């Protein structure tokens, strides 16, 4: 059965870790960090698909996640729409938004694409700050509790289970997608757009699809985060959050299926581990990132894959 549904060793390992880890949680704070790690992992999977596989940079995904969160929250608090349905509407809205901006923006390449996504991100962030009647401005706004068909999510464990299931399911779909002809098309766009074009691939069409997909995942994670924390502020949509997400993907390993999760988890937990260093916290945080990038230029996941490859080779 495992083979039939393509549930490989990596997915089983991930599931096992997700089940075991809560036994070591001493209080709610551990859960909180874990849930934020899982939600960041989700966004990074989408971002990795865009950056690591299709080779298109985005410096705006923090803003997309934030905007998606705001749409879901505002629909709930101002119009009384149930959380699940408001997330659904937010996803549809953001998908249309992403599709429209993808057409002009994804014609750009490299640095210019980075600049354009950066611009869109900053515009979103400014709008969220300024439109205080709707968004509460820079003070943010509180969010009603999350209910699904009358079932209320009020404990951290419930949230943890929800996010963990969502993550495993997403990574399973993502693995299937990447290993399908669709995934090959994405990688071919990174390899050579001209080559892809010459065998009949409509490159801009696929760039749009993958961009929309990554924004949809960011919207889901962004709205869940807002409902989980009970509060949303423009800082979720800030430039620094977008950069943080990119760093997670790069550090974890661009174009490695599990790179996004590894990067997101490490960079979400690291600041918490470093709090004892007080004033030097940021300095050490930066130094660690620099060292990882020098000694593992292809990301942390690549080291794991190399090890696996070597073990495999020695078995032969």
């Amino acid at each position: 059965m495992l083979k039939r549904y393509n549930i490989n060793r990596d997915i089983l390992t991930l599931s096992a870790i997700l089940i075991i880890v809560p036994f070591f949680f001493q209080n709610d704070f551990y859960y909180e960090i874990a849930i934020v790690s899982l939600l960041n992992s989700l966004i990074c999977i989408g971002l990795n698909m865009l950056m690591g596989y299709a080779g298109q940079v985005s410096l705006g995904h923090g803003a997309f996640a934030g905007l998606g969160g705001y749409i879901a929250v505002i629909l709930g608090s101002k119009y009384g729409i149930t959380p699940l349905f408001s997330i659904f509407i937010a996803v549809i809205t953001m998908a249309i938004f992403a599709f429209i901006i993808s057409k002009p923006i994804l014609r750009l390449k490299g640095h210019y694409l980075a600049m354009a996504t950066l611009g869109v991100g900053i515009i979103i962030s400014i709008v969220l700050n300024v439109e205080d009647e709707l968004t509460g401005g820079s003070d943010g706004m509180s969010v009603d509790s999350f209910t699904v068909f009358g079932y209320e999510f009020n404990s951290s464990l419930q949230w943890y289970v929800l996010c963990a299931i969502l993550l495993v399911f997403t990574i399973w779909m993502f693995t299937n997608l990447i290993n399908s002809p669709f995934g090959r098309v994405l990688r071919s766009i990174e390899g050579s757009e001209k080559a892809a074009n010459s065998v009949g691939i409509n490159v801009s069409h696929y760039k749009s699809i993958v961009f929309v997909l990554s924004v949809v995942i960011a919207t889901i994670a962004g709205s869940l985060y807002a409902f989980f924390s009970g509060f949303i502020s423009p800082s979720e949509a800030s430039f620094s959050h977008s950069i943080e997400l990119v760093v997670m993907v790069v550090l974890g390993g661009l174009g490695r299926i599990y790179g996004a999760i590894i990067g997101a988890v490490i960079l979400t937990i690291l600041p918490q581990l470093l709090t004892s260093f007080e004033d030097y916290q940021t300095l050490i945080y930066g130094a660690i990132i620099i060292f990882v990038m020098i000694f593992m230029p292809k990301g942390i996941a690549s080291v794991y894959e190399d090890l696996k490859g070597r073990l495999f080779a020695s078995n032969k």
Partner: protein
Amino acid sequence: MLQINRVTKQFGGIKAVDDLSFRVKKGSIHSIIGPNGAGKTTLVNMITGVYKVDSGTIFLDGADITNISTDKLVYRGICRTFQNLEICENLTVLENVLLGFDKYMDKSLLKSCFRAKSIQVDEARYKQRALHLLGLIGLEKLADQKAENLSYGILKKLEIVRALGTSPELILLDEPVAGLNPKETQEVSNLIKTVVADEVTIILVEHDMKMVMQISDYITVMNFGKKLAQGTPEQIANNEDVIRAYLGSGVVC
């Protein structure tokens, strides 16, 4: 099969291709030669929809294909290779060839995400066909190697094989043997001959005169964007205009 009527392409003040017309016969190897800068690659780029033509028309089997984009032309049976290698180095050799079959593959999102059986079956089938194509150039053994690890000569051949995956009726080869050694050149020549035997038409842009003279059915010579001469290899070899264009005007300084 292919009919080019008075096409012109201008870059700034330079007419890269100037009022050029010729026809390509079905199932033939039609070479286009000329000194550097004669407009050969520009012509290929116009036929394959990379550049828009300024004026003129291009017909394929009686249908107007002027200014149709490269990816759509693949569905009409036109495929090309590039002068400067365009291979996805992040993919394996086999994946690069599989890319050639892309136009036949089902890439619907839901089916891909949920690993539909039909996609698995198709993939296995195209893998067999891709391996068969790799066999034509003796590369089955390298199928799982990353393309970035392979030599230039192998990748040049790989590009042609990838184009064959699209089952084209017309292939445009832009300098397929540039930078290859004589042995590799011979292999590419043989590959081209095998392909033509399957009723595929070939437009060959090439500087290697020995190869061009050996395998061409017909040659069009370009110079400064214009057609200088056309004919069979024997006619071209003895054409004085062509000799002058290649070797200079004969004025001794």
